[in-house]
């Protein structure tokens, strides 16, 4: 899933300060699952904004709403009846949702309330970790199911580097060395020989190196 984290309140206040009425919009997908922008976070942020503005003597009307998914036009269409009553939209969805809103409601300022962080997995309750960078050319089949692009600080194709000690990356003891993990996993699989194969340099073009990407499924596309 896509993970996100709420922006500092201070930044958000500056976005909404000029307005009288805003729509605060949650998304019931990834950002709900990572506890950044679901119904609960919408409620918390609305209260926080109210209070922070009230302190400086201003008031704002905040309409709270949460869409099933903000990155699909049909769901966004739901907002049409409520959009005229507000001066601006603040979205708690990932960047995709925010842009979808901006595309649909051209005349309304749209602000992000969260910083979209990465594609990750939940390690345990309340902890999410990066797992994928969408490089467009998945090599997990060769690396024992552990991605050196997303999980090696240097994105090495042939690791580990000299900074790997005791299974940890030199950037911090709480960061596993991806290549140490790859080695352990390959050992489990009895595929140690893979480790000594030299992988060629990564072609970054499918990962966005040649511009914004798009997927077209001809059978589905109209």
């Amino acid at each position, binding site marked *: 899933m896509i993970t996100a984290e709420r922006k500092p309140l201070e930044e958000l206040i500056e976005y909404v300060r000029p307005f009288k009425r805003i729509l605060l919009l949650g998304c019931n997908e990834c950002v709900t699952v990572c506890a950044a922008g679901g119904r609960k976070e919408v409620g918390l942020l609305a209260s*926080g904004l109210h209070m922070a503005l009230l302190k400086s003597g201003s008031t704002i009307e905040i309409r709270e709403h949460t869409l099933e998914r903000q990155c699909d036009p049909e769901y966004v269409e739901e907002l049409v009846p409520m959009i005229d009553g507000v001066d601006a939209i603040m979205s708690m969805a990932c960047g995709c949702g925010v842009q979808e809103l901006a595309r649909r409601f051209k005349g309304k300022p749209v602000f992000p309330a969260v910083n979209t962080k990465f594609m990750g997995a939940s390690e345990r309750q309340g902890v999410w970790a990066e797992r994928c960078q969408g490089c467009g050319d998945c090599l997990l089949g060769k690396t024992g199911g552990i991605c050196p692009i997303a999980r090696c600080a240097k994105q090495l194709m042939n690791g580990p580097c000299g900074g790997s000690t005791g299974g940890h990356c030199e950037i911090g003891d709480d960061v596993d060395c991806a290549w140490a993990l790859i080695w352990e996993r390959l050992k489990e699989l009895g595929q140690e020989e893979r480790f000594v194969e030299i992988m060629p340099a990564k072609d970054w073009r499918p990962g966005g190196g040649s511009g914004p990407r798009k997927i077209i499924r001809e059978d589905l596309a109209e």
Partner: protein
Amino acid sequence: MDTFEPVIVAFCCHYCAYTAADMAGSQRLTYPSNVKIIRVPCSSKVDALHIVKAFEMGADGVYVAGCLEGDCHFKNGNTRAARMVDYVQKYMDEIGIERERLEMVMMSAGMGYRFAQVATEITEKIRKLGPSSIHAAICRQHVDTCAVVVE
């Protein structure tokens, strides 16, 4: 400002803190009437939203009272609640409400005296802090209905 009487909300778990509050009554211990108790089955039932909304409505102080560590009727509800309170305190920093206005306390059902003591201490602390900035701002807006005197 000497007439300031804070309004404090105490979310109390049914099994310990709420029972302790009743116990304080049985023992005729006294504590300030500023504290208003809302009963919840477990301190972990208290949602960050409830606390934030309480401050938004003008609470000067809020505390969550659960069982002693290790005694939670639901295994670990009280420690979860304590973590939630920590989290909301950080949010209060961002909003600009003193984090001292929110507290997690733990007590057993038999600790009537502790309930009264905690209620007294927290009320005293909040009195010293004065009205919350939100409460004060509400009062500036509704001078007619607000009892708090704002300079």
